[in-house]
């Protein structure tokens, strides 16, 4: 039976019991009341019977109307009482007795009437005595009746009380039974709930094959059954899920393996780092180039396990800062720090020259690590070195015979081998001039080679721009004086200490100045002007103007003026010397330094060259 049914049943039982109890109580109260009334009535009858007897004997002694009246009154009262109490006596036994009582009273009334008549009319002694005896007997009977009635009444009350006691006991037993039953039921429910709780926890811990052993047919039993069904369903669901996961994992593993294979096959060295800079992965290239196996590297911080070193094998601290910046996301990508050679230490202790790149690994918008790629550039550096050496050597080979010619010509012209005739001097001068051009050409070609090969490095150092330009102007003094050129210069006041590469700046200024002087007719003017303007951060922009009142550049040749080995027609005619490389070199240097160069020119009026050069401010 289900719990609800049990509960319902119990409620009904209790309700009934209470109803019965109430009913019984009401009944008892009623009974008691009735019994009490009966007893009162009986008592009254008893009393009145005695009173009538008394009156009767008094009348016999002294007959009077008054006494007769009192007897009749009393009888009336008794009659009334009996009438009124008729409804109280319903049981047959009671009723019979009651009837008898009424009958006796009737009889007594008749007898008394006869007695009175007799007494009033002669007084037959024998009749009076008989009547008196009969009345007395009636009285006794009546008293006895009254007593019986009373007794009957009290017996009924006792019966009712016992009935009530019985009902109460039964009720108490029923209630106790129900209480015990409830207690037992609640205990069993709690036990089942505990089992359910334990079962739920077991399943939550992963043991899906747990089965609740609750077999009752009530709600708890249904719950347990539902629970077991759920466990079974969960188990099959999870095993199904596990299968799906296994399948998917195999797919993903395959994809991952492919991606890894691609990654690991990159010929360059690759190392992936987590956000703390620890090595998550290295590829075959890394292992091959450096001799370390992946297992030996995993988990270690890159800057500890494989720091970038300089030629002396000392750690380059900037490279570590750079990696930190990449991981923090403050730098998008990092290339080599200029003028620094990077080495990694191989497992065998030797150094490997590398070029190094680091970039953050982005997952959506978040940085989850960094990946660094490096390449063995030993060959490249060797090739570069070979190129540089070749150029140097080639220029050396070219210069050697040139200097021989120079010096011997100089010595001849100086008269070391004897006095010369004028014509001889003249011819020797031509040889010397021609040779000088060759020397200039070789020097220019050497510069061009170096610039084009990119094998020269920009080396900024603290430079005084004003001093540098003025010294270059000074270098041109011989030419300036020869051509009687008026030279002026203006430099903007500044309190800055700037850094730039002086040798490159010299090349620029020297070329432009010598051009200005060279290509200006006698008595012309050359002006130099330097101004500064702020760029961003600690960078300053220098604007250098070099203007002359010279031959100018023909309009139709302006676009060629910066090209290699180009000389404009108008200066060729004017018998000036030039390699055609000067402006080309200047352009290369300026472009490499991040500056700009342009010019304004009018044929036979003059030319002004403008150039901008970014400078680093060291201090104010």
């Amino acid at each position, binding site marked *: 039976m289900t719990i609800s049914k049990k509960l319902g049943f119990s409620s009904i039982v209790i309700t009934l019991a209470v109803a019965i109890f109430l009913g019984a109580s009401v009944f008892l109260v009623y009974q008691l009341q009735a019994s009490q009334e009966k007893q009162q009535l009986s008592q009254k009858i008893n009393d009145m019977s005695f009173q009538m007897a008394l009156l009767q004997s008094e009348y016999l002694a002294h007959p009077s109307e008054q006494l007769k009246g009192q007897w009749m009154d009393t009888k009336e009262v008794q009659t009334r009482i009996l009438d009124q109490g008729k409804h109280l006596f319903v049981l047959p036994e009671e009723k019979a007795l009651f009837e008898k009582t009424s009958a006796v009273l009737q009889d007594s009334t008749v007898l008394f009437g006869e007695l009175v008549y007799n007494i009033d009319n002669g007084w037959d002694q024998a009749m009076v005595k008989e009547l008196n005896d009969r009345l007395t007997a009636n009285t006794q009977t009546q008293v006895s009746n009254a007593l019986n009635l009373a007794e009957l009444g009290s017996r009924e009350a006792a019966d009712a009380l016992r009935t009530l006691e019985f009902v109460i006991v039964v009720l108490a037993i029923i209630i106790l039974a129900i209480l015990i039953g409830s207690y037992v039921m609640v205990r069993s429910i709690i036990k089942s709930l505990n089992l359910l709780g334990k079962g739920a926890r077991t399943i939550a811990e992963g043991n899906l094959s747990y089965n609740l052993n609750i077999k009752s047919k009530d709600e708890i039993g249904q719950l347990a059954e539902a629970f077991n069904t759920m466990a079974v369903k969960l188990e099959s669901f999870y095993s199904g899920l596990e299968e799906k996961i296994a399948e998917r994992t195999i797919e993903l593993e395959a994809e991952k393996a492919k991606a890894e294979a691609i990654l690991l096959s990159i010929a360059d060295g690759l190392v992936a780092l987590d956000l703390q800079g620890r090595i998550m992965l290295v590829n075959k290239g890394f292992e091959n180039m450096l001799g370390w196996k992946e297992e030996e590297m995993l988990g270690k911080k890159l800057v500890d396990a494989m720091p970038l070193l300089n030629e002396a094998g000392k750690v380059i601290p900037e490279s570590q800062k750079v990696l930190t910046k990449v991981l923090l996301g403050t730098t998008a990508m990092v290339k080599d720090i200029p003028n620094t050679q990077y080495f990694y230490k191989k497992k065998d202790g030797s150094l490997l020259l590398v070029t190094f790149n680091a970039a953050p690994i982005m997952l959506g918008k978040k940085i989850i690590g960094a990946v660094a790629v490096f390449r063995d550039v030993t060959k490249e550096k060797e090739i570069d070195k070979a190129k540089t050496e070749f150029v140097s050597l080639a220029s050396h080979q070219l210069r050697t015979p040139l*200097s*021989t010619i*120079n010096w011997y010509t100089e010595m001849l012209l100086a008269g070391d081998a004897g006095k010369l005739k004028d014509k001889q001097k003249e011819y020797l001068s031509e040889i010397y001039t021609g040779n000088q051009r060759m020397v200039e050409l070789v020097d220019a070609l050497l510069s061009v080679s170096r610039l084009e090969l990119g094998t020269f490095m920009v080396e900024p150092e603290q430079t005084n721009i004003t001093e540098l330009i003025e010294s270059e102007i000074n270098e041109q003094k011989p030419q300036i004086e020869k051509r009687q050129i008026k030279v002026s210069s203006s430099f903007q006041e500044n309190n800055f200490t700037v850094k730039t590469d002086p040798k490159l700046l010299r090349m620029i200024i020297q070329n432009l100045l010598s051009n200005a002087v060279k290509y200006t007719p006698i008595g012309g003017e050359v002006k130099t002007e330097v101004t500064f303007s702020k760029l961003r951060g600690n960078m300053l922009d220098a604007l250098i103007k070099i203007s002359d009142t010279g031959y100018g550049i023909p309009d139709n040749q302006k676009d060629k003026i910066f090209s290699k080995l180009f000389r404009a027609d108008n200066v060729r005619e004017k018998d000036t010397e030039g390699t055609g490389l000067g402006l080309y070199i200047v352009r290369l240097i300026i472009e490499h330094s991040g500056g700009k160069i342009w010019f304004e020119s009018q044929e036979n009026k003059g030319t002004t060259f403008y150039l901008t050069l970014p400078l680093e401010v060291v201090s104010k």
Partner: protein
Amino acid sequence: MSHTAENKKVLIVEDERPMREALCNKFKQEHFNVFEAKNGEEGLKVALQEHPDMILLDIIMPVMDGMAMLEKLRLDFWGKTANVIMLTNIDNKSNITEAMQKGVLQFLVKSDWKIEEVLHIVQEKLK
């Protein structure tokens, strides 16, 4: 050891005969006591023997080049402070740096300088 300028010793280490002769003649003209060598090995020997007041040193030379000779020279007690001027036609950066590190007085590219100028420089340095 005080000599007059005219009796100063100068050592010319140069493998190119014409250049070597030109220099020797020029310095002899100015009454220098001139010594010559045609490679680094010879140059080192003569230097350590004669202790010249000035050494004009070329770089590209057979047998032993100028840089090697310079290094060996600096190992010698006298050679440590010997006056050396590089006189060469090769001018790549590493050579210049290395030479300056080894304490040469000046690095001259031959084709940039007149022979008279070379003479004057030596005379200046010996003052």
